[in-house]
């Protein structure tokens, strides 16, 4: 049953992906700014040198920007379906390779943030709901407010100042692949993880607390208590699974957001993920890379939502038959 449902939902994502690809492709082309000029070094108005018409024309042809857009799209889609997202006009590295080279960094960071956020948020959110108006609840509330009110970049800079500059415990920027040096990997990923994890946790705590309080009023909870179950079983078995149902839907969205990377965090920590790549590619009007990265992020969002749906179906037996 679940397998059939999963397959059906997977098939349903195909039209979504197609529409996304059309939108991404055309939106990227709509970004104002002359990519020929950018390629020739006329970005930002800082350079005063003369540019010749011939070179402009030569570059235009090279970038293929003169072809009709539907043709450009068809060509692009045809290649994309074979896993070829084109090559950046700036260099000879296939866009797919660049993305794949940077994707792990973003995914590790997202996963670490999700794990940290979840580890903090679930116990805290549940405790806050179960022990309303106690110090745990106030602590949870504090975390939520902090997460919602303080901008990520500020938290990032404060953490860098404290743990990097003053205490000297952790590096302030960069990334090391786990297979190269796992300890260094952890050291580099710690601060960005705290920033993103806290942000993630704030959302999750807020959600879990509200939902848990609602769940605790449900009749099935009274039934569980009437069975003589311990409070631990009532909360972590009976209420928790039901509460996760709603939370998973929200998490799916938050998680896919994290998977897309955080431009601000990647910029501040000079973290070589795909989000910063996207930013640089926009600056460079490197549309092939922009399209590739955006499509990749969209794919990931769709896939995470798909996973959330499957997880939801796993948790919620009703959905499979509807």
């Amino acid at each position, binding site marked *: 049953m679940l397998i059939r449902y999963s397959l059906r939902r997977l098939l349903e994502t195909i039209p979504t992906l197609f529409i996304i690809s059309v939108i991404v492709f055309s939106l990227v082309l709509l970004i104002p700014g002359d990519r020929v000029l950018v390629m020739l070094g006329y970005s930002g108005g800082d350079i005063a040198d003369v540019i010749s018409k011939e070179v402009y024309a030569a570059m235009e042809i090279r970038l293929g920007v003169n072809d009709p857009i539907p043709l450009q799209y068809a060509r692009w889609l045809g290649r994309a379906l074979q896993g070829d997202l084109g090559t950046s006009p700036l260099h000879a590295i296939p866009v797919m390779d660049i993305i794949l080279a940077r994707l792990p960094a973003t995914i590790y960071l997202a996963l670490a943030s999700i794990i940290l956020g979840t580890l903090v948020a679930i116990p805290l959110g549940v405790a806050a709901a179960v022990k309303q108006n106690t110090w745990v609840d106030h602590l949870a509330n504090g975390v939520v407010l902090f997460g919602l009110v303080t901008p990520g970049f500020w938290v990032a800079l404060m953490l860098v100042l404290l743990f990097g500059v003053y205490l000297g415990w952790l590096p302030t920027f960069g990334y090391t692949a786990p297979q190269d040096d796992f300890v260094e990997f952890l050291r580099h990923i710690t601060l960005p993880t705290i920033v993103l994890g806290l942000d993630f946790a704030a959302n999750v705590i807020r959600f879990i607390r509200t939902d848990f309080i609602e769940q605790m009023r*449900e*009749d*099935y909870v*009274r*039934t*569980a*208590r*009437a*069975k*003589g*179950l*311990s*409070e631990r*079983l009532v909360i972590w078995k*009976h209420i928790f*699974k*039901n509460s996760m*149902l709603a939370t998973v839907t929200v998490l799916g969205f938050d998680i896919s957001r994290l998977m897309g990377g955080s431009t601000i965090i990647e910029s501040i920590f000079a973290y070589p993920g795909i989000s910063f790549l996207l930013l640089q590619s926009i600056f460079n009007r490197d549309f092939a890379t922009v399209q590739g990265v955006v499509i990749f992020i969209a794919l990931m969002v769709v896939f995470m939502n798909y996973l959330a749906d499957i997880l939801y179906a796993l*948790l*919620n*037996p*009703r959905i499979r038959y509807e």
Partner: protein
Amino acid sequence: MAILDVQHLTVDFALDDGGTLRAVDDTSFTIDSGEVLGLVGESGSGKSVTALSIMRLLDSQADITAGRILFDGEDLATKSEAEMRTIRGQRISMIFQEPMTSLNPAYTVGDQVSEVFRHHLHMGFGESKQRAIEMFERVKIPRPKDTYGKFPHEFSGGMRQRVMIAIALACGPDLLIADEPTTALDVTIQAQVLSVIQDLQHDMGLALLFISHDLEVVAQMCDKVAVMYGARLMEVGESTSLFTGPRHPYTDGLLRSIPRRGQPLTPIAGTIFDLRSPPDGCRFHPRCPYAEDRCRRETPELRALEPAGDGRLAACHFPLAGVGAKA
């Protein structure tokens, strides 16, 4: 011997506005082993609160402020949470009115039954599963084996209530509290579920506290009946004699308000008072056709009535003769 002896039970709710509400007031009754006591009364009279007090499952705003709940000689009112957990589901069980929401939608019904075996009797998965399937048989669920792995939403209300019964009776309790177990069901289903309860009660020799406002069902199911009005008991007595010869004007009114062939339907005049400000004296007096001055001043105690020996108790200064006419 009485398995349950409730003495002067008083439950107060702390209201959000700072006031208090007495949902159960100075209520006493007993249930013997194997006996079925019906608890009847209008909505809001305190039946469920009484039941939840026995289970010690009251909301946090509620507090048992007086009285004792002697179960098998021990006072439940003073037991710790941990002690109560060994009693709940094992020695006293409860089934609720809403079969649609009382089961956990996220777990299979089998799990919800076998869980009780695992928790209280420390069985393994295989054994608890076996026992759960047996329970499904006993509550007459068709194809009990297939039932095990199904989820609550795959069942009708009647079947779910049977699952609830299976959960409640799994550990062979001494006392079952059924709080309006069939109110939410269709009439035909109602009868089936009631017969399941009745059969099992009989087979297992259960003491049963059966809460309902359906007097006919109570008459059919119960050995003894207690009538509640505005947080207090008005009358207690043998089921048959109480229904044929009510001694309390409120019981009398209740009986007259159910449609019966050949008799005009006469609902009790007026409405129930606000529990936050109960009237002085007899709390039924604003609606009682027999009320006199004394009724407005003095609160009548629940006491044994003449002729002594039939066990009838009523809280009235001027009890009825027992044949529908004023004494």
